[in-house]
């Protein structure tokens, strides 16, 4: 049994909020660089170069990469042999409060979806906990901007729609989003499960590094195929036209009901942020 204190959790979350907003994950920065080298369209080349320059400016001047520093989505893989001393969820919210205040990040959360009213400190966090075996407490902060979140979609397809229906829904989602989610986009795709589970799968897919394909060869092939189809749309960086519409996508699946084929597409942008630490 290992003990983790609320203070340790708060400090870690605060640090991760700041780091995630200033430094892009290695795989995302690399995908952007590779896309730039493959892009044949001049306006798109120029746009991708500027997006790369933005990453350097952010890191040099300690500025957030994007002004939408997001909703603080916090994912915790918690070992069942870990004892938390103090209030676990409050410790995470406090970490977000401190990180967003001390890091000069934007406070984008409103207390109520209909009555609005900014909470002033970007709390509450959106917390997802996954229990694992052992003594590890692994925390990932993945701030999510809403320009892209707003373009996400979910559909309960018919089983007869099959893989073609699934692919069409994903491609149609990117086409409908057009320039709004700040392309080049990154897609987290969920398929299977139930109405709620499929959305969680899509969100989880965004946490997988872009250079790690689905371990199931069937889904790995589907990921490659879908990426090529999405990039054939010609939307291009920022919607100005070009080859690079999507930097990468991941599919997560789970068993589903005999009568259903749920699909969810969580749209994210070229500033897909995530930072992880283990306690």
């Amino acid at each position, binding site marked *: 049994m290992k003990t983790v204190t609320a203070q340790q959790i708060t400090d870690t979350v605060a640090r991760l909020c700041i780091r995630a907003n200033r430094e892009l994950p290695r795989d995302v920065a690399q995908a952007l660089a590779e896309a730039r080298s493959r892009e044949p369209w001049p306006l798109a080349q120029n746009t991708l170069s500027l997006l790369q320059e933005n990453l350097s400016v952010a890191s040099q*001047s300690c500025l957030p990469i994007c002004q*939408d*520093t997001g909703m603080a989505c916090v994912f915790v893989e918690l070992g069942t042999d870990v004892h938390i001393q103090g209030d676990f969820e409050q410790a995470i919210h406090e970490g977000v409060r401190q990180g967003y205040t001390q890091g000069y990040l*934007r406070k*984008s959360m409103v207390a109520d979806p209909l009555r609005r009213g900014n909470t002033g400190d970007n709390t509450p966090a959106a917390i997802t906990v996954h229990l694992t075996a052992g003594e590890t407490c692994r925390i990932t902060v993945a701030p999510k901007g809403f320009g892209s979140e707003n373009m996400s979609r979910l559909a309960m397809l018919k089983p007869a729609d099959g893989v073609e229906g699934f692919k069409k829904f994903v491609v149609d989602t990117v086409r409908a989003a057009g320039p709004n989610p700040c392309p080049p986009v990154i897609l987290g795709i969920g398929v299977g499960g139930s109405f709620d589970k499929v959305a969680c799968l899509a969100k989880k897919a965004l946490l997988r590094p872009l250079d790690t394909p689905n371990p199931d060869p069937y889904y790995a092939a589907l990921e490659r195929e879908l990426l090529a189809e999405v990039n054939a749309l*010609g939307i*291009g960086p920022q919607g100005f036209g070009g080859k690079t519409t999507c930097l990468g996508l991941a599919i997560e699946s789970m068993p589903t009901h005999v009568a259903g084929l749920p699909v969810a597409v969580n749209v994210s*942008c070229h500033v897909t942020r995530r930072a992880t630490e283990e306690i």
Partner: protein
Amino acid sequence: MEHKITVPCAAADLAALRAGDTVLLSGTVYTARDQAHIRMTQALDAGESLPFPIEGSAIYYVGPTPEQPGQIIGAAGPTTSCRMDGFSPRLLRLGNRVMIGKGERSEEVKQAVAETGSVYLAALGGAGALMARCIQSVETVAWEDLGCEAVRKLRVENMPLTVILDAHGGDLYRQGPANYLRENEHKI
């Protein structure tokens, strides 16, 4: 083609711009996004004046991050413009000439752009740090209670923008992808 434009400006200054052109914008730009647009509309409905001179103005849809000590503004990239679609035609008809944001606009906005000789320019979405570098000074002019959504007066220099909607019906979000796909088909 690249143009240097100084705002505030008249429709005549924007007539040469075409969808896909690059603009280096300098001068005075006012920030306003969702809540500020609601309040501007309420002010107009109540017969009150707007918090800045609308004639020839440039409005930037942005909610920046807070400035750090020694900096004048935080990251300041554009937000999605379509949320302002319901308000923009009225502001354009009152004299607003340049809108800066990112993403699609409604048919009503496109019509008002052509009718008034205005333009809709895109800033780089997700490039908040880069956009901040072009901002020379910041002054809050109204509705400080809105936090990042308050109306601010920015002095900008050579802000790199791309013409999306020009005054002649051009639309880069239609033409850009179509041109790329056409060229690409030729190559295949």
